[in-house]
């Protein structure tokens, strides 16, 4: 079983829809949770990060972390065709000798105009 599970999609929605992307994880030591967006043939770019549980909002994007359920979500409001990309969740523990991020497989999102 992978440490981080993510539905690969693809997910297709009409422009203006609310999109929900999710990941589950098994390692209770994870404390930092990130969402990266990756366009085709580009490197991942950071969208949001959250420490521990709770919500964080940035414009049309909201990240939620539920550590009790080991479940994180990214919501995109008023989705745009330019949001079409692969969305990767990533997470890591606190401190220790390593700073490596563990990524999900990514969810491919297509927003149809």
């Amino acid at each position, binding site marked *: 079983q992978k440490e981080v599970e993510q539905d690969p999609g693809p997910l297709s929605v009409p422009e203006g829809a609310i999109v929900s992307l999710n990941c589950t994880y098994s390692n209770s030591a994870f404390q930092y949770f990130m969402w990266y967006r990756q366009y085709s043939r580009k*490197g991942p770019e950071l969208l949001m990060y959250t420490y521990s549980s709770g919500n964080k909002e940035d414009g049309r994007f909201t990240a939620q972390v539920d550590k009790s359920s080991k479940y994180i979500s990214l919501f995109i409001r008023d989705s745009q065709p330019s949001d079409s990309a692969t969305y990767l969740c990533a997470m890591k523990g606190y401190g220790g000798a390593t700073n490596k991020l563990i990524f999900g*497989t990514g969810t491919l999102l297509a927003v149809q105009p």
Partner: protein
Amino acid sequence: GAGVSQTPSNKVTEKGKYVELRCDPISGHTALYWYRQSLGQGPEFLIYFQGTGAADDSGLPNDRFFAVRPEGSVSTLKIQRTERGDSAVYLCASSPQTVSGANVLTFGAGSRLTVL
């Protein structure tokens, strides 16, 4: 530089050949990471440098893979005796000294390696 630069952007080689992939991180970033991304998969951790030293190389798949960062800036990932299974996009990322543990990584566009 303004971002993380990786060269070459594409590399096609034959099975058994030696390959070097280069990463030039953001100026001042002390931490540098190498990840490998296969088609349809998320990035898979290979190695992490803090300064010149490899702080964690637990992701290197075998002894054919090696990475260096001799002056604490540019890094080179070296792959000996390449195999077809090594075909992937090799991503480099850098980050400043960790602030509150968030460890925000900035990725390059990657080097796409194809082993024939």
